């Protein structure tokens, strides 16, 4: 392959590569709260806060981009604390619904905010994000989650996820851990929002809708939430899939939009029904299957 055709390839797919990283980070933000058994669907709102605040800083302050990103990471985490205090007392579906409500209120707030052009949002945001930044952010998030696993906090989180009352009788302050994970997830979402805004040149409220959170959740579940890197696998798979589907739909003459939707739905359904631990558990499953077959042979 010549270097120029490599370059063409890169030009064609670099935005896919960028979005794999961004979606991976967003999937991790859902996973982070899920890792102690909490389903928070406010992640799009945290993302919006990060995106808006960083874009405003870019427009109105001379602060370096790194400072913008830091603010966009910390502010959603701060906002998540007063949200989490009352809301994390809710269980299961009720928590999910309350966070959906919060997410919609935040989105509608931005739709009505004249300062940021209401429903149109901010356009011509300078491009500041490079792909390496996205992957550095993703790498950092993965690193943090990896180090939490197996630590004292990591065991506490697993205990809370499995049986919260029992975990508490072991002295684990479940409310504090849940709040901390909500804040960490909010930070990831805010950072992803800021990076995306400065990659796509724009911040528009419609980007941060319920549909977007559902996408994040789907990435996490399809990838698998029993290991910390599962959500990233899911995000990569489902973000790359449309590129493949585009080729296919052109050949068989179907509209790419519905085909993509259909395949997304079908993959999700298949995973939840037949692969409850997600596609990241496939290698292990195959290994187990092979070993079982070998043992059957030996016996």
């Amino acid at each position, binding site marked *: 392959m010549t270097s120029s055709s490599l370059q063409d390839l890169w030009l064609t797919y670099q935005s896919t590569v960028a979005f794999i990283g961004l979606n991976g980070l967003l999937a991790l933000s859902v996973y982070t709260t899920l890792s102690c058994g909490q389903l928070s669907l406010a992640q799009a709102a945290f993302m919006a806060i990060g995106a808006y605040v960083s874009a405003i800083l870019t427009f109105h302050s001379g602060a370096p981009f790194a400072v913008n990103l830091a603010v966009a990471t910390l502010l959603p985490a701060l906002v998540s604390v007063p949200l989490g205090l009352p809301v994390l007392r809710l269980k299961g579906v009720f928590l999910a619904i309350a966070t959906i409500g919060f997410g919609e209120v935040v989105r509608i707030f931005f739709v009505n905010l004249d300062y940021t052009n209401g429903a149109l949002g901010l356009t011509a945001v300078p491009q500041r994000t490079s792909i390496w930044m996205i992957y550095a952010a993703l790498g950092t998030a993965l690193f943090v989650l990896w180090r939490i696993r197996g630590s004292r906090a990591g065991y506490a989180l697993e205990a809370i996820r499995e049986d919260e009352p029992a975990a508490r009788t072991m002295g684990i302050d479940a409310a504090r851990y849940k709040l901390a994970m909500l804040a960490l997830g909010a930070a990831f979402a805010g950072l992803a929002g800021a990076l995306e805004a400065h990659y796509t040149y724009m911040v528009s409220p419609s980007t941060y809708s319920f549909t977007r959170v559902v996408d994040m959740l789907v990435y996490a579940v399809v990838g698998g939430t029993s290991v910390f890197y599962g959500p990233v696998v899911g995000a990569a798979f489902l973000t790359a899939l449309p590129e493949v589907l585009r080729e296919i739909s052109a050949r068989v003459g179907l509209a790419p939009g519905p085909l993509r939707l259909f395949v997304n739905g079908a993959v999700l359904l298949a995973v939840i*029904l037949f692969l409850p631990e997600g596609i990241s558990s496939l290698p292990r499953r195959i290994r187990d299957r092979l070993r079982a077959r070998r043992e059957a042979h030996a016996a």
Partner: protein
Amino acid sequence: MGQQIVNGLFLGSIYALFALGYTLVFGVLDILNLAHQAVFMVCAYAALVLVGHLHLPMFAAFPVAVLLGGFLGMAVDRIAFRPLRGRSDSNIAGLISSIALATILEAAVVQVFGPDVERFPFGAVPTRSLKIGGAVVSELQIVIIAIAIAMLLGLTWLLRRTRLGRRIRAVAESPKAARVLGVDVDRIISASFFVSSALGAAAGVLFGLAFNNVSPDMGRSVELKGLAVIVLGGMGSMPGAALAGVALGLLEVFTVAWVGSSYRDAVAFGVLFLVLVLRPRGLLGSAALREA
């Protein structure tokens, strides 16, 4: 003012129909069926096809679409919920499998009809209107409110007076106990999905008629409002959902009149959020299905 109230009741009765179906399944299974909105949307398209392409009159198309909704609901149960029953994470898993099914249905509709808004043919929708007091009321609004009230009464009768209704309530109370008493729990759940989705389908057709607007994403905003309604009414409570549906309709109409249309949607979610934080049981308790 009178006009506002009429408009609010009209909108609210559609919300109520949608939410009744939503909350019925929650009451029985403790699970949110996020494919409810897809059934709502698909059945609006079904009515559109029956009226627009097969030239059925509306009063014939409506029950056909509602029946179709019921069967679609049973299919949703079969595909997205029954296989997950008994799994430890069935709560979140059911949420996700129903999202998956909704996505598939939406994709199918977009493939067949395209992504754009479709309208009922001229003449399918009554356009006359009358004056009651100071308010202008269209015939359509009256019909919709009447249908909603009739279905609400029918549902109350079904749950209170029939054997099926008693069994549905028994399963809602405790699936285990119901099974011990010889109730075929899977069949009752299936029946609940039929009733629930038939109500959702009715709401979909009426919604399409009311705004003369049928589109693949019409269910999405209603889905979130429906959530607000069932939380406000108390999860699983039938009377609560009906009441809260009407209340939300009125609240939205008055918000538009007094505050501005761009805040209409904020009302639903603001209320939703506050109710969950301040009074998670909703207006009418949590287990009111048993008293329905």
